[in-house]
């Protein structure tokens, strides 16, 4: 038989190879140079032509030849992908058509200028992100890059040339890439430049001379050579890792850099990345969240710094502590960090005295075996230190006003009170007001109030009045003590307050998570679970939520879950699909497609993405780290719960498989026995008939054997077909008005041979109405019950069939006087392939399963019990409705 479902081996092999290709990540080869004009594109095209002639499938994803003839000539013969034209503010820009290249799926794609910034509105802001996607799709990429565009070298290049570098490529992108250094002596480069053979963008003409100074070029060349050399070493490392040689961090060093909102943190991060690269060490970027909330500007800068660290390959950790040094050291211990990088403090910070020394001093004191690097924070330091958001400024202005007003009010009260109490006691009332004030306003206003009250007391109440002079030593002592106590109280109260606020935020986060967990735990099934996820996330994030789940059977395709509160537009769907495929967040407030309306977070369980949660926030404000953290926690939690549910389902599935294995084994056992026995009877009887000269009696007996065996086989096949019809849901009873007497008689007539020698009593109540049932199914039901009774009881014991009508149902009973049913088999007796231990030889254990299936298909019930006085009783109950009236025929 030719089964169309059976896959042919060639298709299978092709599928395996496709899978391999998909799993294999593409290789990146970088044509690396010290400056524009050294001939990277040329070298790249030459290499590509070699690949092409070696039979590889090569396309040009994007190559800019700047119209130079010899370069142009090299592109000839290499198929080029059409470019994407975009219009931005009236300027027409061309970009690589990423999707086209992905769809074309060549073996090798040429993508020039890795550091290029894409046109606004492209999928990724940067071309290197496009390249990563190509690599992930299993496409090899040739690209070109100058040393100045390497993230960790950009700072050095700026120092050498004095030109700030805006377009940079994270070092992590270059890890594992193959480097081909395209080198040209500086003199020759300058000659080419003078001959106009080097393309320099219009905007950079001014900087051109400065950049291409001989001294600069030598320095850049050295930088490029050194970077190239380092990467050759990295290749070896990558090889060792891939092949399980040695441990991943050869030097056993683990680095950590402290990241703050300060702009100088960025250069600290780069410095650490360089050190980590040289030491071939893993590294962490740690930010300590203090009880005092950051303003929006600080928040944004911190996010940027952390994003930079992430891009450069750091593992980012955010922790909460009211002390930076303590938080850093805790993380360092947890992560077995061996070296910590912090910024070198500038100037003298008085406040540090309160905290037991500067951050650096305390780190050094408490760090134990951990080394501390204090690095001078470079560049960009001009960013305003206290760039406070307008909202916060207005708020604090109000607080200062309140503090001043309170001081004035208390001064008024004191002016009245001074007639009854001494002026020294009035200081206590001032102190009281400062303490109370500190509970409601920040540190600054409290300090202002402390100062104002001290001066007011001195001026208005201390002798001599209305001067700032203090006449007695006691008063002087009192004034100074008061001043210090008020300051300290104010400071402590304010700190207490901000700690409480931080505590409250943590509390809120914990509560939100707790509520989510509690709600999720109450879900009764998967659908319920998903509905709760959507509702709770929508509440917690104040956003419209869409949940996309992988489409069954279609790899990479997502469907929006129907209960989602946000119907994803097509564009957002593709962002969600990207987030799912790459298992990275995408959309607004991320690096990928930040112009999207929604934030798309993949729901992860280990390394697998289970789906994507897409949020459209109802407010317009950018996401704070705090809320983002909360969302991350929630999504993680959801991932855990969904994964658990998935495992539970998988377990269920495994159980089903085990059950079906058991069934098929039982089927094989019983069916092979049931088929072989009658076949054996037929073949032996037929072969003995073949011998000539036998008496007619023997002949007759043999023919009877053959007939009996054949009928038995026929019944077995019928049973198997019936059970198959039941299993596949193909039993659709044709309900019709039937005469029960007719049914019983027809059944008995059919089974005349099988029931030979058995007395079957039929008792049908008088006036039994017509019953709606499927005559043929019921005939089989009744037949199976009768055969069952005959098989399990002694020949000669009576079998009885009785039918009677109750008001709303027909009760049909088959009873015998055999040994009855052991009580333990009663619950199992209608299971398919179940055979009672006491069952006689022969039989498949299908008969009663078919009875149950057929009766239930007609809306009836079947049950088995033991009769009083011995024997078994099988009862069928079918619903009874009134038959319509019958008229005489009209013709």
């Amino acid at each position, binding site marked *: 038989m030719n089964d169309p479902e059976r896959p042919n081996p060639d298709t299978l092999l092709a599928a395996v190879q496709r899978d391999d290709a998909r799993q294999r990540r593409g290789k990146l080869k970088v044509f690396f140079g010290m400056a524009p004009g050294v001939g990277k594109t040329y070298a790249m095209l030459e290499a590509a032509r070699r690949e092409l002639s070696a039979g590889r499938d090569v396309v040009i994803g994007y190559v800019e030849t700047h119209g130079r003839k010899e370069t142009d000539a090299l592109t000839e013969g290499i198929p080029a992908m059409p470019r994407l034209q975009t219009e931005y503010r009236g300027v027409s820009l061309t970009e690589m058509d990423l999707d086209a290249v992905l769809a074309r799926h060549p073996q090798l794609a040429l993508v020039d200028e890795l550091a290029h910034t894409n046109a606004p509105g492209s999928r990724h802001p940067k071309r290197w992100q496009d390249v990563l996607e190509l690599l992930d799709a299993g496409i090899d990429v040739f690209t070109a890059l100058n040393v100045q565009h390497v993230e960790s070298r950009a700072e050095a290049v700026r120092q050498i040339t004095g030109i700030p570098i805006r377009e940079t490529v994270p070092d992590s992108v270059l890890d594992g890439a193959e480097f081909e250094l395209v080198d040209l002596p500086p003199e020759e480069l300058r000659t080419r430049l003078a001959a106009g053979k080097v393309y320099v963008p219009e905007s950079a003409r001014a900087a051109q001379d400065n950049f291409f100074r001989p001294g600069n070029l030598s320095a850049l060349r050295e930088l490029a050579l050194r970077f190239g050399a380092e990467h050759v070493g990295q290749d070896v490392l990558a090889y060792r890792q891939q092949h399980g040689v040695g441990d991943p961090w050869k030097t056993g060093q683990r680095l950590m850099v402290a990241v703050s909102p300060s702009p100088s943190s960025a250069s600290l991060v780069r410095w650490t990345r360089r050190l980590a690269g040289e030491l071939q060490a893993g590294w962490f970027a740690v930010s300590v969240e203090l009880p005092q909330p950051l303003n929006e500007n600080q928040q944004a800068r911190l996010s940027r710094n952390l994003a930079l660290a992430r891009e450069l390959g750091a593992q980012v950790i955010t922790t909460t502590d009211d002390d930076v040094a303590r938080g850093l050291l805790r993380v360092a211990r947890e992560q077995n960090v061996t070296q910590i990088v912090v910024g070198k403090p500038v100037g003298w910070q008085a406040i540090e005295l309160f905290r037991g020394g500067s951050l650096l001093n305390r780190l050094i004191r408490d760090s134990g075996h951990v080394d501390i690097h204090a690095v001078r924070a470079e560049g960009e330091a001009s960013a305003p230190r206290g760039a406070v958001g307008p909202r916060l400024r207005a708020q604090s202005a109000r607080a200062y006003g309140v503090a001043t007003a309170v001081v004035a009010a208390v001064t008024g009260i004191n002016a009245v009170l001074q007639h009854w109490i001494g002026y020294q006691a009035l200081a206590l009332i001032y102190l009281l007001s400062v303490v109370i004030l500190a509970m409601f306003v920040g540190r600054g206003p409290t300090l202002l109030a402390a100062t104002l009250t001290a001066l007011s007391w001195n001026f208005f109440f201390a002798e001599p009045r209305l001067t700032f002079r203090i006449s007695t030593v006691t008063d002087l002592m009192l004034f100074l003590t008061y001043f210090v106590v008020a300051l300290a109280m104010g400071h402590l109260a304010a700190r207490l307050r901000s700690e409480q606020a931080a505590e409250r935020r943590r509390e809120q986060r914990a509560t939100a998570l707790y509520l989510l967990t509690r709600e999720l735990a109450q879900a009764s099934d998967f659908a319920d679970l998903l509905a709760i996820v959507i509702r709770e996330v929508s509440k917690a994030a104040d956003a419209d939520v869409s949940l996309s789940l992988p489409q069954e059977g279609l790899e990479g395709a997502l469907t929006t879950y129907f209960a989602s509160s946000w119907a994803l537009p097509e564009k957002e769907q593709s962002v969600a699909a990207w987030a799912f495929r790459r298992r990275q967040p995408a959309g607004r407030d991320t690096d990928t497609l930040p112009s999207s309306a929604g934030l798309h977070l993949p729901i992860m369980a280990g390394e697998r993405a289970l789906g994507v949660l897409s949020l459209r926030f109802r407010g317009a404000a950018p996401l704070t780290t705090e809320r983002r953290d909360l969302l991350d926690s929630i999504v993680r939690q959801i991932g855990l719960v969904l994964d658990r549910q998935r495992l539970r389902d998988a377990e269920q599935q495994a159980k089903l498989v085990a059950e079906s294995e058991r069934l098929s084994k039982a089927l094989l056992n019983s069916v092979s026995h049931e088929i072989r026995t009658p076949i054996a009877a037929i073949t032996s009887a037929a072969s003995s008939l073949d011998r000539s000269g036998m008496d007619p009696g023997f002949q007759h007996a043999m023919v009877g054997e053959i007939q009996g065996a*054949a*009928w038995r086989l*026929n019944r077995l096949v*019928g049973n198997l077909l019936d059970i198959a019809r039941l299993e596949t849901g193909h039993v659709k009873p*044709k309900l*019709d*008005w*039937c*005469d029960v*007497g*007719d049914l019983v*008689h*027809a059944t008995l007539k059919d089974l005349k041979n099988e029931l030979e020698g058995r007395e079957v009593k*039929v008792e*049908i109540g008088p006036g039994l109405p*017509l019953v709606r049932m*499927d*005559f*043929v199914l019921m*005939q089989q039901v009744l037949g199976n019950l009768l055969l069952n009774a005959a098989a399990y009881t002694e020949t000669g014991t009576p079998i009885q069939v009785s039918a009677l009508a109750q008001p709303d149902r027909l009760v049909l009973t088959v009873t015998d006087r055999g040994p009855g049913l052991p009580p333990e088999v009663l619950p199992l007796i209608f299971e398919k392939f179940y055979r009672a231990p006491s069952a006689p030889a022969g039989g498949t254990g299908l008969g009663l399963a078919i009875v149950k299936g057929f009766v239930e298909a007609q809306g009836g019930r079947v049950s088995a019990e033991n009769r009083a006085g011995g024997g078994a009783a099988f009862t069928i109950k079918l619903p009874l409705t009134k*038959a*319509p009236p*019958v*008229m*005489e*025929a*009209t*013709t």
Partner: protein
Amino acid sequence: MALVVDDEVQIRRLLRVCLESDGYRVHEASTGQEAITEAAQRKPDVVVLDLGLPDMDGVEVLKRLREWSRVPVLVLSVRDREEDKIAALDHGADDYVTKPFGAGELLARLRVARRHADPAPELSVFRSGALEVDLTARVVKVEGKEVKLTATEYSLLRLLVQHAGKVLTHRHILREVWGPNYAEQTHYLRVYMAHLREKLEREPGKPRLLITEPGVGYRLVEES
């Protein structure tokens, strides 16, 4: 002469032995197309037709045959579902026997089918067992005693007598006796059949004349 249409060699061989022992000359066909050609050329007296043929369905063969021929057709099939039986009977099959089958029964059914096809002299009196029906005088007797039937009971009985030995489907009977609008009202048939059995059968609970064909219809047995 009989034409045996079946794609299984074993069944054709068996039928040939069986039919030749009863005096038939046998021709064989293994496909529907072949069956139609053979039937047109040989003009058989009876056709034994399998439903599962390689090139077309047996019911299709039946339909084509019935376009120009009234040869008695006995369907012999493994399909035992009532829908299949009804479809075959409604498309002009004279009888339906399911595999596995007994040779004796098959030959008896063939005889009945052939007799109905013969334009035999109009029988005015039908006898089977103790039943005697005089179609001209409209008199029904059981064991010589006249039995009173209502008009509907009589027209039901007359229909069965006219097709004695053949299976009549529910739809066919309902249409003929009650009219086309009553083709689905099987409970009419059940009620009147019970009445008839009550009046004509010796043991109404164990009918010997008016036989139920489960899920398909009824048959009036011819007993000598």
